[in-house]
């Protein structure tokens, strides 16, 4: 026999083909179900490794966003406290200007002095503002920053420290969260409490009222300038929020590029694999079921 004999059993070949098709189909089905083409590292080792980094980056951005959410409240609370301080100081200045008028009687001035004392305690309470149990102007100390102290020249003692906290709101981007109370309220030559104390004293003694008013107005200007930090921080945070949202979108796109399944392609692949499976099954069914034996009588 010179012709090449063929393997009379094609079944194992067909079974292998069928097995491979079924594997491909289950992969495609999983891709469609999860709409991800990386369902285990071996699906795309480099892509899976990249996804570890992308996921980490994504949770980092989430954490920046969460941080921004929590410091936003703190910053605006501090800003509004300082805005009240500024308003109160304005009132003190106009009271001072009123008291400097020589036509006032002693009792008029003592009435003004008593209102100024009210302003003094209002300022202390504003300087002790807290947000969710955290004093906003204590530096990094956890103690109440300002307490009334008759021994102190200004009548108020600072018990916080000179520290400040910064919070990371982006890759290598830190925003300062607070200014220590001593810097805001006890500026050299611009001490808010000293200025008010001096104004009260001058009002009681009816001497040097104008000088004391100037002192208060200097303190007023100083506090206003300190307040800028909070305004700036809030602006930074707001623009960073926009940036982070964009970054998150970009990251989502990268994630999709790396691991997203191309559902249209996968679906058409699945369809052609199903066709191939059916064809193979049909071929198996049509394997000769008869042999020459059937035709012999």
């Amino acid at each position, binding site marked *: 026999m010179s012709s090449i004999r063929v*393997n009379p059993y094609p079944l194992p070949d067909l079974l*292998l083909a069928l097995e491979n098709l079924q594997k491909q189909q289950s992969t495609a089905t999983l891709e469609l179900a999860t709409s991800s083409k990386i369902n285990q590292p*071996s699906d795309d*080792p480099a892509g899976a490794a990249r996804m570890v980094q992308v996921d980490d980056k994504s949770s980092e951005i989430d*954490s920046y966003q969460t941080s921004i959410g929590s410091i936003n409240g703190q910053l605006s609370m501090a800003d509004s406290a300082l805005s009240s301080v500024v308003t109160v100081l304005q009132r003190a200045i106009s009271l001072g200007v009123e008291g400097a008028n020589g036509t006032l009687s002693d009792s008029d001035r003592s009435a003004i002095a008593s209102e100024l004392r009210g302003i003094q305690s209002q300022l202390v309470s504003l300087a002790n503002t807290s947000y969710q149990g955290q004093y906003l102007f204590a530096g*990094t100390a956890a103690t109440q920053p300002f307490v009334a102290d008759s021994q102190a020249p200004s009548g108020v003692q600072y018990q916080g420290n000179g520290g400040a*906290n910064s919070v*990371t709101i982006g890759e290598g981007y830190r925003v300062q969260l607070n200014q220590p109370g001593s810097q805001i309220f006890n500026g050299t030559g611009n001490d808010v409490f000293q200025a008010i104390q001096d104004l009260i004293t001058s009002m009681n003694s009816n001497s040097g009222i104008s000088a004391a008013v100037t002192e208060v107005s200097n303190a007023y200007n100083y506090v206003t300038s300190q307040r800028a930090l909070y305004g700036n921080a809030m602006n930074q945070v707001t623009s960073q929020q926009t940036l982070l949202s964009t970054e998150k979108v970009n990251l989502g796109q990268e994630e999709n590029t790396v691991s997203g399944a191309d559902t249209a392609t996968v679906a058409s692949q699945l369809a052609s694999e199903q066709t191939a499976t059916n064809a193979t099954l049909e071929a198996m069914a049509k394997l000769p079921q008869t042999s020459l034996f059937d035709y012999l009588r």
Partner: protein
Amino acid sequence: MSNLLASLSVAVGALGAEQGALDATTNNVANVNTPGYSRQQPILAESEPVVIGNITYGTGVTLEKLQSLRDPILQLRIGEETQQQGQLNALVSGMQQVQVQFTSSSGDIGAEISNFFTSLAQLSTDPGNLSLRQGVLTAGQNMATSFNNVANNLTAQQSNLNLEVVQDVQQINVLTGQIAGLNQQISQMEGVNQDASALVDQRDVLIGQLSGLIDVSTIQSDNGVTLTTSNGVPLVVGGQSFALSTQTDASGMEEISSEGSDITSQINSGDLAGVIEVRDDKIPTILTSLDTLAANLETNLNAANATGFTLVQQSDGTLEQGGNLFVTPPASGRGAASTMALAISDASLIAASSDPTGSDSNGNLAVLSAVHDQAIANGQTPTDYYSNIVFGVGNDVSNGSAQLSASQLILNQLQDQRGAISGVSLDEEAANMVSYQRAFDAAAQMVTTINDLLYTVISMGTLTG
């Protein structure tokens, strides 16, 4: 001329030969589904002619033998490819199990590392907040647990593979014993010129099974086949088999030895080679990487915590310096992943502050968070280092699977070729059956005719007598 009785013997001889040929066909048809069966072909030859006077008379047909059709070289190739496939199969299925540990999920190591650093970031917005501090401890505990789980699961898988080694060796010993027995029977039969093809087929099947387990070199020799590993470790020599044995080494791993020498690292293919590769190479490498990552995370985070201050106030009113956040990893790093754990359970001991007077300071959290971006192992950040481990595992599975598919195709082609040579075709057998039957019928007719002729001759005697 020749005599009628001689013709009768030619016809009777033909009946025998055709019946023998028909036997081969029957046997082929009967074994159509027997694995490893090689079809038999009757070898018919002319009988020695006789010369009477100057005429040469044929003396009919002889059935010389029934030959089994097989290609020993092809059989060797099938064996080699089976070994390759056995190894790849074990490697891929082992690494697929490993891969499960590194498949991205909410609790995997990568996610838990991210979560830990997220918890630090959250604490930095309100460093005195005890529930946020507790959040850091919980995230630290989860990170440690994820390392523990993966390391323990890998170690458990190693022990399972260890059992598989023992089972493989037992199976190998059974097979080599059977092959040695067959070798003996075959050489005995062939010694007295008997056809041992049925036993040879059986032996081929057993060698095929053995090839799935270990690398086998086959050498045909006078006393049957000699089987060794590719490194020359004897498995079967003639009628004798050499059993492999296992003993537990210091680290609890089963080592394989033959005739007293350790051959564990010398097994190059078959299931055993794949199992040993995953047990002794792949898993230990991954465990070492995890240990390195865990140990460096612990060491760096501890160092960072020690530069800051806790919430605990000392007698002079200042805050206490931070201590270890995680337990100190073993000096060698070995086992760091499986033993990773928090060193503290009191959340106030997290050294968030960088100021001994500032319990609301978050300055040191920046130092702790910086570990996230530090090159702590192999010049890589924790996440990058981990992503490399994931890459390695995925790559092993994907390369192994590709090789396995290729090997499967090759093996199938070889089996096709084997089938083309040795497989039974029912059509062919039917055609053979018809021709042998016709020949048998014809020979039988010849006997009848010669019988008639003989009767005629005998009657001639009666008439004259």
